[in-house]
């Protein structure tokens, strides 16, 4: 078994599936010889050649539109958006076509593509390189929206995304691309695309999060433990479709919930989790649901960005408020 980072696990998953399935192709800007600006596709061009690892012209409309066309005709494209801030020209093709071919044609045409999107802030990047825009896609029927938070989940979820018969938006928390290594077997074992992962058991409060904030949530749980507070940590992993049952089971036990996400607060995906709790868990809750999120502002350039991102400190304070409330 190899010790790999999250990004290396992604490369491993793509290489695995490309070797197994000739219909899998990678396309995007700089994905070929350069191996991607983050190095996610490094080595793939050498292994699979320039047609299956396609450096496209610099046009996101091209990347998304071509991927839709290929997917509808029996290929399994893995399209790369170079950064989160550059997916917007792709939205037309993803929303109006990829997400709808199946339903529009009553199942005659489908669109099994994966759109990989390096996601989120905290890497001192220039403007438009730090967006947490998962909600742009979670409101779209027909899409799956996935975000791994560890090397092994990255490997298993990306394999599942490639094999899935429907379009998957695969967000990659770039802040933790190389945070740590983990043993990941290149065994082709996919993970399910409709479950949340309970990363830590607890009994007093449930911390619900995804992507890069899993790191802060786990650290907050450690900090809370020092104060005798037992926090359960859930990595949502697949935002859409949502495995609300896992979250609900946890809240039945803890009675308290803090939702943590990097995206702006209003209509962020945390609002969906909170709404489900209001609908289904009202009588399980002993304290109001808390959200620790980005603010309803644009993420500042890097001199101030860490003040914008949810911190361990803010999560701990929110968790303590839920305990103080009951």
């Amino acid at each position, binding site marked *: 078994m190899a010790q790999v980072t999250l990004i290396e696990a992604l490369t491993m998953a793509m290489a695995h599936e490309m070797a197994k399935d000739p219909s899998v192709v990678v396309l995007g*800007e*700089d994905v*070929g*010889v*350069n*191996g991607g*600006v983050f190095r996610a596709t490094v080595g793939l061009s050498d292994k699979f050649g320039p047609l299956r690892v396609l*450096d496209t*012209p*610099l*046009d*996101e*409309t*091209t990347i998304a539109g071509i991927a839709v066309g290929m997917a509808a005709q029996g290929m399994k494209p893995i399209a790369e958006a170079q950064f989160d*801030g*550059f997916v*917007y*020209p792709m939205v037309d093709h993803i929303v109006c076509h990829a997400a709808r071919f199946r339903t529009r044609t009553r199942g005659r045409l489908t669109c099994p593509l994966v759109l990989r999107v390096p996601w989120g802030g905290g890497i*001192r*990047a*220039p*403007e*438009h*390189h730090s967006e947490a825009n998962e909600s742009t896609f979670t409101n779209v029927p027909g899409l799956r929206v996935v975000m791994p938070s560890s090397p092994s989940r990255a490997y298993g979820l990306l394999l599942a995304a490639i094999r899935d018969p429907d379009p998957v938006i695969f967000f990659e928390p770039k802040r933790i691309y190389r945070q740590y290594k983990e043993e990941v077997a290149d065994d082709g074992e996919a993970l399910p695309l409709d479950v949340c992962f309970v990363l830590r058991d607890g009994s007093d409060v449930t911390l619900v999060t995804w992507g890069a904030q899993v790191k802060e949530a786990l650290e907050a749980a450690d900090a809370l433990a020092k104060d005798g507070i037992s926090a359960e940590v859930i990595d949502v992993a697949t935002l859409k479709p949502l495995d609300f049952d896992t979250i609900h089971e946890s809240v039945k036990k803890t009675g308290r919930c803090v939702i943590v996400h990097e995206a702006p*607060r*209003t209509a962020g995906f945390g609002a969906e989790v909170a709404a489900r709790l209001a609908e289904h868990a009202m009588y399980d809750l002993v304290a109001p649901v808390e959200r620790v999120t980005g*603010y*309803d*502002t*644009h993420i*500042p*350039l*890097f*001199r*101030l*960005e860490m*003040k*914008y991102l949810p911190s361990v*400190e*803010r999560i701990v304070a929110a968790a303590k408020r839920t305990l103080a409330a009951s």
Partner: protein
Amino acid sequence: MSIAASFEIEYLQYLDADGKLVRNDLPEFARDTRQLVELYKTMSFVRVFDGKAVALQRTGKLGTYASCLGHEAAHVAIGSAMHIDDVFAPMYREYGAQFVRGVKPREVLMYWGGDERGNDFSGPAHDFPWCVPIATQCLHAAGAAMAFKIRKEPRVAVSVVGDGGSSKADFYSAINMAGAQTLPYVSVIVNNQWAISVPRSAQTGAKTLAQKGIAAGLECLQVDGNDLIAMRTAMDYAIKRARHGHGGMVIEAVTYRLSDHTTADDARRYRPDAEVKSAWEREPLKRLRNYLVAQNAWSDKHEETWKAECEKIVDVEVNAYLETKVQPVEAMFDYVYAELPADLQEQRAQVLELEQARKH
């Protein structure tokens, strides 16, 4: 069959790589060597600044920075040909054009140094800020040109896009609109042969990038982008035409990106050293310097004095940047709306409270 349409793309060059004149119809401005010297001085100032910015990034004092090494002639020509009332829509490395328009080096550093105030620069207040989402600026420039046309103002909008960016839908849409509406819009494609790791040849099957304008009904020209005289001549022509209501133009400036794409890139991974070496032989400063020296308008002594002067000016700018205090945390709320909605005031208060608690 008969011919429905045909076209040719002209190529403009005055100075060859060694600085020898290859044409004898030197335009008016270039006959005045004092003016050429000023332009040369700006170009070499840009280069000193650029080197300093890269050094700042390498020592952790600046974020990712996009160098303009090798683009100085194209950029300075664009900036100096424009009227101050014209609107400039840059991409992200046209410092040469922007310095001419009044943007301060410290503001460039603030932008790449993670401070929004860099975008609130000292250049014309109507100029667009740096534009990272590739080619989107082209449409904004076309929109500005549309506004000028509606209001009957004798102003011109100029955008810059890269060879890579000229593949993007926005680039095509902008020139198409300019053609459809005869807009006072000049679209400059700075073709530096690379879009990060993707070579020019992978962007399009078209022989020139200039000819993309033909399909939009615009006049097109390919220019030696390392030749200040040719670039300035082309820009003067395009801007004058546009200002007089004759419509838009596409200018392809053929140059070379002598640096990595940005400081986050390592070009050795994808392009041969030999190519870069040969590009250095065609770089823009050397040829103009040779020409000016041959005209007895410049000398080694001048060069030395001016370089020292540039270093001094750049040091002042760098220090001003380094001494700029980080904005207070609540600054992130300041310009989201004209007036902060009540809903956001609460979040702002939370941020301030948190900041206070941190200090204690």
